[in-house]
């Protein structure tokens, strides 16, 4: 696989660990979805499958770097049914603004709840880059198809 097969370097901050494995994974997943001739039950179904493929390909691309968010995301994707989350009510002192923002970040980053603060910040940086790269990839595919 040659490095020239990059989607025209759409990412302004090119990730040195370029998302090559994720790139192929995503394209193959797209082809499988496209070839699925089963009648679509609802219009949003293909879109949801593509979305799942997008997150899977991100996680696959990050796997070599052993990122915790990648493992958490793959676990989440493999769970067939959505297991109901335990709703634990804990009474805490009023949180600072920073702590509330930190809580929100933990909800947004896969696996964020379990991480210590340092890891969370590190993982967030990597997750951000992967998300941005995935968006660039999907934009590139959309452009290629529509031409």
């Amino acid at each position, binding site marked *: 696989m040659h490095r020239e097969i990059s989607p025209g370097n759409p990412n302004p901050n090119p990730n040195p660990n370029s998302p090559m494995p994720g790139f192929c994974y995503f394209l193959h997943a797209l*082809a499988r979805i496209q070839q699925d001739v089963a009648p679509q039950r609802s219009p949003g179904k293909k879109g949801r*499958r593509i979305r799942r493929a997008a997150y899977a390909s991100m996680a696959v691309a990050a796997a070599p770097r052993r990122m915790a968010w990648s493992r958490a995301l793959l676990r989440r994707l493999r769970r067939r049914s959505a297991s109901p989350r335990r709703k634990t009510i804990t009474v805490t002192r009023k949180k600072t603004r920073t702590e509330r923002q930190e809580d929100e970040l933990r909800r*947004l980053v896969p696996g964020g709840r379990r991480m210590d603060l340092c890891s969370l910040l590190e993982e967030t940086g990597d997750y951000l880059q992967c998300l941005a790269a995935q968006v660039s990839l999907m934009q590139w595919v959309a452009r290629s*198809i529509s031409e």
Partner: protein
Amino acid sequence: MSSAWTGRARATDDDIKELVAKLQSLLPEARRRSSGRTSAAKLLKETCSYIKSLQREVDDLSDRLSDLISAMDDNSAQAEIIRSLLS
């Protein structure tokens, strides 16, 4: 900025500062507060907002790709993949 996380282990303050600075550098230009000192809360807020907007883009692009590939026939899907892998 270290006081924003009152009660956390002090030993990693420098690590946190470094990671926060790195996080800031990963935000796109428009989201970076160019005014030197940014509060931790603002940076986290921008980061959360950026993540959410990227996730929304993934959703929108998924729908768009769904429409695009529905319009393709079998041959062109294969051709598109082969073309992109070999070009």
